[in-house]
């Protein structure tokens, strides 16, 4: 190198410092371009930061607001009532189980009689509907003051013809014998506006049913009384509780009103203090003075409630004793297997319920109205609260768990469905498909992204929902947990649609990941004599796994953030799904983080605790999305061996 003659070059310094001649408005164009691109990138970052700041600003006040509300909830005594009221809800469930069991049992005897009665009434209605017009005309003619016998005659004949035709046209179910059928036909044919009594056959059918029903009720008398006992057991307790609740609610309303007026007064006084114009100042002060509410003596009113603790406990104890007796009285046998199972469940559920009630009653003593609500318990009430209740006349609760579970279960369903579909499709397209197939598959899958999610929501409501419901009723599929399903709009339905929406993202990214697997790996594997399948599953997929995983995670991010479909299709029941149903839980409706914001934000008043709570949900949602995206990146980095 050194021996080579060096051509004459300008000194280094002058090369580096050589100034460019072209400038725009005194700026170097290179720099301008750099600033242009740089500023665009910073705009994105700034907007992101602004979003975070905005969300936080609106949402962060939620905790103190909610703290104040929960404080009032406690001080006014609502919490006290809820100690008993919450476990008492169980009474409803148990008693509805019993009612179901009872009606199932009764049906074993009275079902045919009832069906025959109902069928006969239905037939009568159908016949009357079919001949409604002539019947109407005849009725009108009969009501006219001077009757026109000729016209009435004609109308009567018309009605007779119409009825006869209708009697022939309706379908008689198998429940009736030929003879009964003929009798029914005869009686229906004789129906005219003047006849007010039920046709005799129908009367017999009604009587038949009543007999059967009485018979059934005597046969299952034990069950009937047990059910009645159980239902009545809660009444005295409920009465006391209702009185207390009314009192508590009254106190709360007063306290809230006082607080509103008080804050208003403070604000007016503040304004007055800073006002310079003496006239304005006077009017503000006057206004402030007017905004005075009667102070509520919380201590006084709470005494009226806690003063009855002993009475309440006594009632609870009585109630527990009565229901335990009812449980003991529950008959061992019921009409059907299903009914027996229900009765057994109730028999086992009652002692548990009684124990819970007694425990709740014991808790009453430890309750203090003036115990402060700490900010941590408020956070707990939000993040671990199991109830999201708004616009309640009793008390609003903003518990986050039902929404989170809904979102998570739906997302899990969607990912479980979408992952195999999109990964397999990506492998096929990338490795096995011919060029023509590729040209077909890729745009078609990517087109899914262009479908507006509200349209998918339509499809979910009208098509997928019915489809799932119909399929769930097929007899040979009854082994599937949760079948037959109750609700057409449920988490599974939403999960399916979200899976459909997530497929394009997951497919494209997985396909890219496979595409990025270096050609050289495939060469090496081929050269060693591997078959196509071996190469795919032993080399390409393992090498692309990081990309595939991050595709799945990004799909998850998309699914968690999706709103429209879940709002329309998930069923929007704000309750934690009943996981005791096992895997069948996926066929229950639920509400979601995104759905609740979309549904409620437009309706709440700005700045209210509800509004702030929705922003908190938004913050959490944002955090989840960030986390998922961050995980996707981390995964992509973690398993990227061929870039090492």
């Amino acid at each position, binding site marked *: 190198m050194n021996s080579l003659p060096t051509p004459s070059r300008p000194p280094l310094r002058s090369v580096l410092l050589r100034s460019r001649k072209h400038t725009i408005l005194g700026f170097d164009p290179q720099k301008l371009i750099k600033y242009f691109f740089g500023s665009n990138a910073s705009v994105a970052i700034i907007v992101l930061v602004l979003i975070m700041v905005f969300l936080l600003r609106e949402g962060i006040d939620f905790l103190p607001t909610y703290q104040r509300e929960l404080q009032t909830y406690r001080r006014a005594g609502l919490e006290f009532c809820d100690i008993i009221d919450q476990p008492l809800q169980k009474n409803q469930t148990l008693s509805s189980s019993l009612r179901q069991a009872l009606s199932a049992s009764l049906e074993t005897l009275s079902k045919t009689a009832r069906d025959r009665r109902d069928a006969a009434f239905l037939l009568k209605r159908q016949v009357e509907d079919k001949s409604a017009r002539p019947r109407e005309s005849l009725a009108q003619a009969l009501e006219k003051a001077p009757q026109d016998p000729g016209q009435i005659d004609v109308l009567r004949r018309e009605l007779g013809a119409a009825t006869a035709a209708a009697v022939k046209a309706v379908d008689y179910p198998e429940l009736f014998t030929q003879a009964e059928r003929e009798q029914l036909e005869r009686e229906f044919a004789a129906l005219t506006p003047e006849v007010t009594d039920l046709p005799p056959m129908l009367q017999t059918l009604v009587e038949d049913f009543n007999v059967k029903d009485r018979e059934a009720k005597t046969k299952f008398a034990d069950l009937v009384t047990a059910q009645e006992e159980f239902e009545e057991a809660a009444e005295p307790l409920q009465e006391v509780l209702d009185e207390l609740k009314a009192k508590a609610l009254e106190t709360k309303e007063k306290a809230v009103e006082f607080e509103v007026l008080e804050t208003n007064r403070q604000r007016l006084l503040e304004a007055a203090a800073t006002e310079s114009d003496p006239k304005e100042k006077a009017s503000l002060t006057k206004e402030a003075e007017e905004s005075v509410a009667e102070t509520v003596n919380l201590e006084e009113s709470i005494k009226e409630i806690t003063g009855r603790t002993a009475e309440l406990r006594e009632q609870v104890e009585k109630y527990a004793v009565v229901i335990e007796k009812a449980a003991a009285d529950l008959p061992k046998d019921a009409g059907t297997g299903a009914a027996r199972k229900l009765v057994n469940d109730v028999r086992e559920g009652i002692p548990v319920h009684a124990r819970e009630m007694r425990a709740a009653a014991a808790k009453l003593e430890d309750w203090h109205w003036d115990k402060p609500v700490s900010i941590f318990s408020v956070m707990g009430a939000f993040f671990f609260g199991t109830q999201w209740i708004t616009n309640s006349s009793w008390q609003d609760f903003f518990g986050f768990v039902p929404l989170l579970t809904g979102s998570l279960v739906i997302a899990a369903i969607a990912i479980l469905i979408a992952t195999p579909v999109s990964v397999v499709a990506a492998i096929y397209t990338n490795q096995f498909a011919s060029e023509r197939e590729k040209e077909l598959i890729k745009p078609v899958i990517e087109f899914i992204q262009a479908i507006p999610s509200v349209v998918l929501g339509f499809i979910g409501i009208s098509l997928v929902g019915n489809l799932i419901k119909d399929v769930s009723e097929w007899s040979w599929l009854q082994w599937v947990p949760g079948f037959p399903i109750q609700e057409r709009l449920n988490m599974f339905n939403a999960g399916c649609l979200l899976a459909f929406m997530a497929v394009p993202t997951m497919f494209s990214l997985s396909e890219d990941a496979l595409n990025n697997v270096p050609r*050289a790996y495939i060469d090496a594997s*081929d*050269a*060693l004599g591997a078959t196509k399948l071996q190469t795919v599953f032993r*080399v390409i997929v393992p090498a692309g796994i990081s990309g595939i995983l991050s595709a799945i995670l990004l799909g998850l991010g998309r699914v968690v953030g999706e709103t429209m479909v879940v709002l329309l299709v998930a069923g929007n029941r704000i309750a934690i799904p009943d996981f005791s149903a096992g895997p069948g839980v996926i066929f229950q409706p639920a509400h979601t983080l995104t759905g609740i914001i979309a549904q409620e934000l437009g309706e709440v008043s700005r700045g209210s605790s509800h509004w702030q709570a929705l922003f908190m949900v938004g913050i959490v949602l944002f955090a989840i999305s960030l986390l998922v995206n961050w995980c996707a990146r981390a995964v992509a980095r973690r398993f990227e061996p*061929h870039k090492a």
Partner: protein
Amino acid sequence: MSADFTAQSTPPPVVQVRDMDFSYGASKALFDINLKVQYHRVTALIGPSGCGKSTLLRCINRMNDRVLSARVTKGEVLVKGKNIYDADVDLTQLRKQVGMVFQKSNPFPKSIYENVAYGLRIHGEKNKSVLDEAVERSLTHAALWEELKDRLHANALALSGGQQQRLCIARAIATVPDVLLMDEPCSALDPISTLKIEELMHQLAKEFTVVIVTHNMQQAVRVSDYTAFLHLGKLVEFAPTEELFTNPREKLTEAYLRGTFS
């Protein structure tokens, strides 16, 4: 190994290319090639860039099959006496007999052990002790065993470039092929690594038959027993290396060797 060995004065070649024409679609890449590769010899393919060395090499293990329009349009390629372009040839078996090492080292993103065992695994070997034994043998052949025996389960991508290329050689010989094809195996390596692989080549020739494409004429002289010179898709001259380099028969060869090539 020498199933087709017959009692002749010269043993039958392990690879024999006969009157072969090869084209990529409409463009013809090789013209009327005739080549015999002898057992346990190193055969070098040299020639200017684009003359068809890689194409010819890839004809021997049918790696060209992947290029859709690529066809052998005339003649045949015999490996151990069998035309590998016959319809009844099992590609998997062919490639088990004819291994290949690429220009750029391409170990899988797996452990060293798994890289070497890969060939056996895809041919259905599950027995752990057989695999262990094969891994040790192949790494020893590739002069890697001493260096790597303590970290067989480390990721292969953590090795140096030269080690990676030797690992690829170990991977290719794990299935005990008859022929080992190498397409410029040293072109991406530093001189020391190159030297190591050249030394290896002599060792390998004891067990395998090697066909190597190289741009480096010194390398051809150092490692090979026979050399074939290709030009514009034609095999210009094929002779024992010494003869070809000291006393080329063709003018074209001479010009190329001198570097006075137009």
